[in-house]
């Protein structure tokens, strides 16, 4: 018996004794239960909520925006905002979301935002992602704390995944969240060198601590992703994702969900909302962004089909934009904006939140849409009702002063 044969038998013996890795077994169990999934989408750069969900019924709306106001909706006319309830309308770029509104899967929370008054993108994103407005030293993100509060113990290396090269602030913290630029790049790029097996042996052999534990899980995750062949799962139900990085992110999140590998919290960003100059109305710069945004969300819902019952998509942005158009046919940094919740048990077909009005004296500091719903009320409700997570640790030092929105049945 030569050395190789001996090793091979040794390996057989070990597999017989040890069985598959612990988390693979747990994942199988979790898959059977078809866990809930939360997909958080960050519109970076502060989206103009007044163009996304147009308050055409507010008498001050059209007057505030000479060149960029959307014309009031008119039934049967293309390229017009789509009326929702006689007061609000969806931007025509979001038309693909209308069927979801009609089937009551899509809810909107308007005049939503942060109690902190900063108009700095970087501070406001930091506050929204840490879940602690005004406090910069919060070490971890609100989504990471949500992951910590999930009812089941860590079941899969893919439990929390951010699409993108770095882990967003919202998922930073001690929960082993994965940041991946793309599914097909989540691999050891070893060519035919045999290094993959070498790394497996190195991480399997080293002491058990955070580093090598994560290394073992990572290499198992790579194998898991390869064998699930998640990157090859095609869009279902004829879903067509728009081209661009956001559509790609949503397509890949859908692949991870359909691969049944234990995803519970996902995160994606979309850039390009900082429309200081030449914002446009039904057409133009912002319209192009909204088409990509709405198209990707609608394709995601179509792709997942019945599975959307287990999935909620929550969109957010660090603040909104000025009510009045500026001198460059754009808008400057404002305060409140609109956020969307889609899927799962969301009671959709309604615009939630109190409308503060757009008249000068109704605005925040005379210029911005006032915040009437603290973003933490919305985030907390989604985390509690959809994921079953206790909300107290999500937003340190905060107790809601208003009743819940009632977003879920």
């Amino acid at each position, binding site marked *: 018996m030569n050395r190789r044969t001996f090793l091979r038998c040794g390996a057989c013996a070990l597999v017989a004794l040890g069985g598959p890795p612990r988390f693979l077994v747990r994942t199988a169990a979790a898959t059977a239960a078809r866990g809930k999934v939360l997909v958080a989408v960050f519109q970076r750069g502060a989206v103009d909520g007044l163009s996304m969900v147009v308050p055409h019924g507010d008498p001050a709306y059209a007057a505030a925006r000479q060149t960029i106001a959307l014309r009031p909706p008119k039934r049967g006319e293309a390229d017009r905002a789509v009326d929702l309830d006689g007061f609000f309308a969806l931007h025509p770029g979001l038309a693909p979301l209308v069927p979801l509104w009609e089937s009551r899967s899509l809810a909107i929370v308007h005049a939503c935002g942060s109690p902190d008054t900063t108009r700095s993108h970087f501070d406001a994103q930091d506050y929204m992602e840490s879940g602690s407005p005004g406090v910069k030293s919060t070490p971890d993100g609100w989504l990471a704390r949500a992951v910590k509060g999930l009812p089941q113990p860590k079941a899969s290396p893919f439990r929390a995944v951010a699409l993108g090269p770095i882990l967003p602030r919202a998922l930073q*913290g001690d929960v082993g969240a994965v940041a991946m630029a793309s599914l097909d790049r989540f691999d050891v790029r070893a060519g035919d060198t045999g290094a993959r097996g070498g790394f497996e042996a190195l991480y399997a052999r080293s002491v058990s601590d955070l580093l090598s534990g994560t290394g073992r899980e990572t290499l198992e995750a790579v194998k898991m992703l390869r064998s699930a062949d998640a990157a090859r799962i095609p869009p279902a139900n004829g879903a067509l994702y728009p081209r661009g990085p956001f559509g790609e992110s949503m397509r890949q999140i859908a692949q991870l969900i359909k691969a049944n590998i234990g995803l519970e919290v996902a995160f994606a960003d979309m850039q390009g909302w900082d429309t200081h100059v030449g914002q446009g109305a039904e057409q*133009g710069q912002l319209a192009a962004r909204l088409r990509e945004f709405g198209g990707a969300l609608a394709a995601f819902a179509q792709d997942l089909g019945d599975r959307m019952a287990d999935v909620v998509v929550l969109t957010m942005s660090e603040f909104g934009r000025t009510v009045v158009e500026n001198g460059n046919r754009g808008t400057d940094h404002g305060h409140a904006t609109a956020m969307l919740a889609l899927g799962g048990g969301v009671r959709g077909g309604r615009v939630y939140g109190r409308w503060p009005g757009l008249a000068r004296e109704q605005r925040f500091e005379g210029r911005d849409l006032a915040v009437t719903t603290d973003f933490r009320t919305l985030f907390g409700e989604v985390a509690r009702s959809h994921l079953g997570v206790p909300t107290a640790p999500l937003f340190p030092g905060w107790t809601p002063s208003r009743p819940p929105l009632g977003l879920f049945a």
Partner: protein
Amino acid sequence: MRRLAVAFLMLGALTGGGVPASGAGPGPGALGEEPTRGAPPLADDRRILHVLNRLALGPRPGDLERVRAVGVDAWIERQLHPETIADAATERALATLASLRLSIPEALRDYPRPEPKLREKLQAGQLTRQEMMELYPPEKRPFRITAELQAAKMLRAVESERQLQEVMVDFWFNHFNVFAAKGDVRWYVAAYERDVIRPNALGRFPDLVRASARHPAMLFYLDNWLSARPDFTVPAGGPKGGRKAGLNENYARELMELHTLGVDGGYTQADVTEVARAFTGWSIDRPQTEGRFAFRPRMHDTGEKVVLGHRIPAGGGQDDGERVLAILTHHPATARFIATKLVRRFVADTPPPPLVQRVAATYLSTDGDVRAMLRTIVAAPEFVSAEAYRAKVKTPFEFVASAVRALGATVDAQGAFDLARASAEIGEPLYQAQPPTGYPDRAEAWVNSGALLARMNFALALARSRYPRVAVDPGSLVTGADPRSPDAVLDRLLAALVAGQASAETRAVLTGELTNPQITRLTAEDRGPASTDVATLAALVLGSPEFQRR
């Protein structure tokens, strides 16, 4: 592959090593364990390697022998005085990065901001992207300043002989972090590192605080330049004329929480407001053309302030801020906070309290002398204890630099851009930490699946010469070893890459890999190895758990 991997577990079990439990629980050498005093000190070569991993960005081939020759204490003393170390080659390599040497007004002039009108034209289709590119070629865009600074940081980390200086510049920039992509900071950031951080990196802590407080990069990043007495109205005439400005507490809060006292340093919200009042008027002169510190008396709150119980009488003007800095930098909480952060960087994620106390005492007796504090740390038994050995997980920046150094690779400014990109892919885009906390100095922040894979892939790409502008020759590391004897090749490789200090586990796995036909190619008759894939073996070492630690 899987077969071999599992098989070596079996060998481990047979030799008494045991099969590691799955999961990520704490274990020997795990994070957060506190070295106890009286633990066995490191043997000589291990101590040298430890010092090279902590006071430098890892050893290059031959460094162990060089430090052994001069003596480790003499080597440390020289590193504490970087001005005595010749470094002309590094300076020459940096010469192509022009923006590093520009004053702020020159940077504002040479890297103009794109006019909003052009962006509008582009969107309206009156200008093609090509035409826009010709007006603003990439080498003239403001981001270039940050990109060159990133490349310079990587280049110095790899090439500079003044290694401790680079470690301390990294440490203090991170402590006094500014985010290079926030507004006008992009034109100020290179000057900030060059004029504030670098000259004081081994100097006195109070000088660092004072220099950062009045630099436009910090004034802009933490908004103090806009902070004014509560009843101040911007004078008419300018674009924001008539707008009410007011007190901005951002800098005041971070100055105490992150720069000096620490979050538990005993200050209150009232102190934050008082400190913010003291700094009103510390502003920037013509931020978009000059970018110089300016004190604006009309924005300043002239009333009395009380900071941490110290009374600052009315009418102090610009001196109010200076007095606050003196109060804060002489405070025992500051000594404790700075000592804690230094010990965390150089010893362990959870700093041993007795050592923190001694370093804080050094701070107070030397008025915050950084050299003196570092001497206290490296002389401490906690520093050279077995528990501290390889207890820290390298940051992505430290990992990239140490891998390039371990291979004995050389890099020019162009290659350094690629290395900076690698650091970003592993999770640390240089000068891009958004929050004022800077990047974390604890393992948990850097250890996640995507980041670990990126480290393995970087090790593979680097060792297999996939970075064309980083000169790597793994074969040269094993010169003299008989290529037909894989064990000899491995020995020589480990001597070069990790000064021979591989753990028994790592050595066992790599020895096993030598029988992998993909790594050691056999002759047709299977009578013995013909050649060993040194590049892949080197990649395995650089991507191993052990090499992620320092």
